[in-house]
């Protein structure tokens, strides 16, 4: 019986993913970039679809029920590349599980 109900649960729960890029490695730093992916298929977020971030900080996303599941590591620059600029460094992945 337990196996059946677990399977039923898995069939009705989907993941929504929010990626926030913050101004520093602190989770309560301001949001400078954002992306969303909707596993329910109800919405289709895409590139350049908004000028207003969904939250002011990473902490605000937590307060709204988003669960943090990955944070970017803090890595020292490669020797000789200390002044290079490249990808955004402070990337945080959040999820919500939504019953559909």
């Amino acid at each position, binding site marked *: 019986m337990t196996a059946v109900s677990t399977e039923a649960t898995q069939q009705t729960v989907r993941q929504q993913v929010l990626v926030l890029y913050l101004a520093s490695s602190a989770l309560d730093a301001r949001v400078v*970039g954002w992306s*969303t992916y909707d596993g329910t298929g109800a919405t289709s*977020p895409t*590139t350049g679809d908004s000028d207003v971030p969904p939250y002011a900080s990473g902490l605000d996303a937590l307060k709204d029920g988003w669960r943090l599941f990955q944070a970017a590591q803090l890595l020292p620059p490669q020797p000789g590349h200390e*002044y290079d*600029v490249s*990808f955004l460094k*402070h990337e945080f992945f959040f999820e919500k599980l939504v019953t559909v």
Partner: protein
Amino acid sequence: MPHPHQKNLLSSVQMAHFVATGSLRMDAVVPDEMNRQAIEVLDNGIPGVPYGTPLSEAFVDSEFVQRLVQLPEVAGAIHSLVGPEPTVDHHAVHIRKAHEGEAQNLHGDAIIDVRPDAFDVQLMYYPQDVTLEMGGTLSVPGSHLRRTNESDTGRYQNLLGQTRLVCPAGTVQFLHHGIWHGGRKNDSAIDRYMFKIRFNPTVRQVRLWNLEDLYDEDVARELSQSFPWYENATGRLEIYNRVKLWQAITGDDTFDPDYWVTRVSNRPQRVVSQRSVNPHAKKVIA
């Protein structure tokens, strides 16, 4: 191509704006009469050009494009950015169809390109009024010096302070080769047209513009600006890198108004104390 008149060259402040933002926009610089012709010309296609064809030879079969690149303000900007007689890398007509469902990923064109003292520019011409719904080009001010390869930035959907182009018909913008950009989804009922040409320089890009205001305070102001999407620490590195680019294109390696480069380059060689006063130093025996 004749040398543009001095008054049509970019100013130093405009060049500094380009170095800081990676773009330069000229609203409604193309006359209405040309904009009205453009859709038919672009629908018919612009003849292909072999890579590296000198600009003066590239569009002999396209009178419209010749007129476009010879408009005084456009020719002045091309000369200021890449110099006399650049070559045409390639050109393309981009049409985002009405209600087209897909946006492009944020990307840099070609491949990663980290030349410290040279750059290509892309001219983008918009013959129609572009509304927000029509999905005008998305670009990210100040992203051109980031060392990333093509669409590896595709995960980034929105960055604070990004530019979603809305412009009047006849607008031309020049973009640094490295700028992050992408065509946005067209949610309108109108097909959106854009024509682009990528130029390669054939001379060293040093002091090619109108230098009268080279040491104007607004030059330093342009170069020191930050953008909302910059992280606190990396934003400082951005200014370091753009000062290095400004030093390269002015040929003046002393220009550093906020001291970001000078401070970390300072390695004095003058020795004050003589080695002989150190009692622990090995005695030199003649």
